[in-house]
């Protein structure tokens, strides 16, 4: 399995990691090398282990990813001290540099 530069940039973006061109090249090389060792897993027989943990097709109940949102037992406002325009109002973090007053 060879990891391309574009793939490295894509996963770095997913992981919120800034990466230089040089860093991406090094990461592509390292990940490709590491993943080459993972090929031994191809020997694992999928069928006989179909009920293993984490397998979404085997025992873990998931709703179909279609249709409108399922109504919540309690509305979001139940969990918040206050709401405005559909947003939770929470105390501002003391470390924020913005000096605007908390709501």
């Amino acid at each position, binding site marked *: 399995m060879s990891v391309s530069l574009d793939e490295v940039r894509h996963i770095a973006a997913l992981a*919120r*990691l800034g990466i230089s061109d040089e860093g991406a090249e090094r*990461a592509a090389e390292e990940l490709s*090398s590491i993943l080459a*060792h*993972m090929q*031994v897993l191809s020997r694992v027989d999928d069928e006989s282990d*179909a009920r*293993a943990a*984490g397998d979404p097709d085997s025992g873990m109940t998931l709703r179909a990813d279609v249709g409108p949102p399922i109504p919540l037992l309690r509305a979001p406002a139940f969990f918040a001290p206050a709401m405005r325009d559909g947003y939770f109002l929470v105390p501002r973090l003391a470390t924020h540099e913005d000096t605007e007053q908390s709501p």
Partner: protein
Amino acid sequence: MTGAGLGSDSFEGTVAAIRASVISGQRSARDVVDRSFARATAVRAGADGLNAILWSDVAVAHNEAAALESRLDGPEAGPLAGVPIAVKDNIATLGSPTTCGSRILAGYHSPFEATVMTRLRDAGAILVGKTNLDEFAMGSSTEFSAFGRTKHPLDPRLVPGGSSGGSAAVVAAGIAPVALGSETGGSVRQPAAFCGVVGVKPTYGRVSRFGLVAFASSLDQIGVFGRSVEDAATVLQAIAGRDPLDATSANVAVPDYAEQLATLDGLVIGKPREYFPEQLDPRIADLCARALDRCRDLGATVREVSLPHTELAIPVYYIVAPAEASSNLARFDGVRYGLRITGHGLRDMYEATRSSGFGPEVTRRILLGTYVLSAGYYDAYYAKAMRARQRIASDFDAVFGSGIDVLFTPTTPTTAFAAGSRADPYEMYLSDIFTVTANLAGIPALSLPIGRVDGLPVGGQLLAPHFHEARMLAIARLLEHSLGAEAHR
């Protein structure tokens, strides 16, 4: 050997002896603290020497010792009264930083304390230092700390193992008789083996993870270092048990870990052939054979067994652990914790902060974990690894179900290696080849010294069924006694 070594002035006495001397008034808890700090100075445990300790404050330790004095009379004197302990710096403590060995958390103070710390303090232990580690516990050599590598107490050119290398070095150098570390793939047992001390990894769920900074939540477990099995067992006794603050802590009664066995009569020890490959250093194999002979002498039967999916362990571990790490470490983004590098907008701030704050190994594992979880690769890697993990766990179930009481293996394939000698990441990962399986299966395991090769410690590993720590410790105690001084030469 040019390092600190195990000199005659290292911390004297067992945990029980220290406690007894403090309770009897033979010496004060403050004296014990001073003894620990004097030893740390003598062996240069800080950044200018071993670099095993990231934080220590004698005034804070004196205050803890003073507070303890009023509890020394009567039943309030805990099982660790006056015992100095060092704690890995990924375990949250109040009154001291918790950095995880990372630039992104440099100077961070947790607003709460880990349950294990609360229990240690209740038991009377005194915190004498937060110890160095591979950043976020990702590593096998303690070379990947943002605050510099920890050196092996016997030879500064060598690594002490990792990721809990600081804790192992502190115990080996005689600064404290016991220490806490954390395990995700062997991070207590491997450095314990390298440094010639005892390291215990409890069953997953045996010890609360509340306040342990998460690396891979399905694998992480807090473990104990001690100079002897008895010392480690005493600390484990103090921290084990259900904690309502950790949903994964098990509601299983904690037995008496001080329980002794007179012999090993009737016990069957399994020797898994996959842990004794042809290429294993014959000198390590010989030391394992000697240890097994001692077990036979003590009455045990030794039977060769097979754990056929062992070859999958490293690939499985290095998919599952980075996958979980990529999720767990998403919280370090410059908003809530520690370092923040401002940029042009929020996304820029996230990326600048994380790129600057994380070191090379953490970055590598986040990228690897994100990759194996990403669309198109999830089934090929993560889903397959989870199936293989189940097979590894089933191997242990089958062996323990066939009448085997414990398994015995070498802890590591080599002795401590030279710093900088494992530049290839996968070569470094292979250091954990005999230890990761216990984490993947969630079973308890320990490493104890069984001898030396070229003057460097070698560890032997015991693995037991879930929640069978008491029997594992009792067997280890007998083997330790049988080997005596031979375990350290």
